[in-house]
C-alpha cells in the first residue's frame, strides 16, 4: 500500500489548492490496473524528491466532485498543482524515467 497522503472532495481546497507546495495529485481507482502498477513508481519519485514535490492520491470512485471538476476521463491521471492552478497533466501509467522526464521542470 502506498504511503502517499489521501485527499478527498472535502479536503482538496486545504490540501491542494491552498497549499504552498508543488503538489501532484494522482487520480486513481481500485479497479484500474495501470493505476496500481504506477503507484509504487510515484512513491519512489515522491521519496527521492520530497523537497521539490508532494504526491497525494485522490480516489475517483469516492470523490466524484473533484474528478468531474478537473474533467478526468482517463486514469491514471496525474496533475501537478502550483498556487491552486494545474501546471502539468500526465495521462497513463509510464515507466519511472518517462515520468521523471515529464516532471523535469518540477523536480529540478
Amino acid at each position, binding site marked *: 500500500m502506498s504511503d502517499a497522503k489521501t485527499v478527498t472532495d472535502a479536503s482538496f481546497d486545504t490540501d491542494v489548492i491552498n497549499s504552498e507546495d508543488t503538489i501532484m495529485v494522482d487520480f486513481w481507482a481500485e479497479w484500474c490496473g*495501470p493505476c496500481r502498477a504506477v503507484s509504487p513508481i510515484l512513491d519512489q519519485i515522491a521519496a527521492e524528491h520530497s523537497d521539490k514535490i508532494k504526491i497525494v492520491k485522490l480516489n475517483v470512485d469516492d470523490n466524484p466532485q473533484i474528478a468531474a471538476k478537473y474533467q478526468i*476521463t*482517463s486514469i491514471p*491521471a496525474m496533475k501537478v498543482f502550483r498556487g491552486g492552478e494545474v501546471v502539468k497533466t500526465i495521462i497513463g501509467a509510464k*515507466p519511472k524515467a518517462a515520468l521523471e522526464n515529464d516532471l523535469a521542470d518540477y523536480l529540478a
Partner: protein
Amino acid sequence: MRQIIIIGSGPAGFTAAIYAARAGLQPLLIASSVEAGGELMKTTEVENFPGFPDGIQGPELMTKLQEQAEKFGTEVLLDDVTAVDFSGDIKKISTGYSGEFEAQAVIFATGSAYRKLGLEDEERLSGRGVSWCATCDGFFFKTKTIAVIGGGDSAMEEATFLTRFAEKVYLVHRKDSLRASKIMQERAFANDKIEFVLNSAVVGINGENSVESLTLENTVTGETSQLDVQGLFVAIGNDPRTHLVHGQLDLTAAGTIAVAGRSSKTNIAGVFAAGDVIDDTYRQAATAAASGTVAALDAEHYLAGLAEAGAIAELREAEHEVSLVEAVASRR
C-alpha cells in the same frame, strides 16, 4: 551469467517461465515496470481460457500465472528492457534501473501495443475523451454517448462492457462485416444500447477541450457525416512490439518476428520468440501460452546442446593434456 532470461510477462512469457523453471533453469523474467501482466491486465472476464468454466478476470489469470512461475523458481523483475545485444554467444540485456544482464538463451515475448488511428487530434484529446482502456476509463462516461472503433473481439467486448456506464454506444467499423467471433458479435447485437455504424471510417476527432464529435467517412460512397459523442474508445488492433530487436532479428512482412516453421527459433541461435510478437493471426491467451511452451522447450534443448558441447570440449582438453604429459614422459 544466467542460463535463460525471458522478456515479457503476458501468457507467453509466464508459461515459458513455468516450463523453464520446472526444467531447473531458474529463469529471470523481466516483466516491465508499469505493464507487467500484459494486455490481459486491461480486460475483464476471460471466458475462453481452458480450465476456467466460470470464466476468470484477466488480471486474476495473470496473477495466477505469475504465482505458478514463481513457485518453481522464476525470478520476476519489474523493470523495463531498454536495449538488447544478441550479437555474441552471450546475450546482453540492459534495463532501466537494474543494470545489465547476461544469458546463454533469451525468450523474447514482448507482445503487441495498441494501434492508434493516426489522426491529428488523437493525441491532443487523449485523456480528454479518447481512450484505449475501457476497463480503466468506462466509469467516466456514465450516461454519456460514446463510440467504439473496431470490428474484432476486443471492440465487441469493450462496447458491451461500456454499456454498463454509457447511455449509448456506437460501434464504428470500416467494413460491412465484423471480424469478431460469433458469440461476441451476437452479444453486441443483442444489446439495446449498442448501435452499429458500419462501412464507416473515422477521419476526424472534433472538440476544443474534450471530444465532442467524430467525422466519419462512408467507405462505400465517400460521403462524410458527423457523429456526436463525448468519448472514443479505439480497438482497431495491435502491432507487434519489436523496436528492441530491429536490425538484430529478422521480421516478417506483417512486422512480427520471423521464426522457423512451428518452432520459436529466430535467425539468431539462442534467441527464441513467443506469443503475439510472432503471431498476427490468432492472438489468443491460449495460443500465446502454447507459444511460450514451445519457446521454453526449444531453449531447453538449445541449452542442453551447449552443455553437451561444453562437456565434450572439456573432455578433449583433458585428453590433450594427458597426451602432452605422456609425450613429455616418453622423452625422458
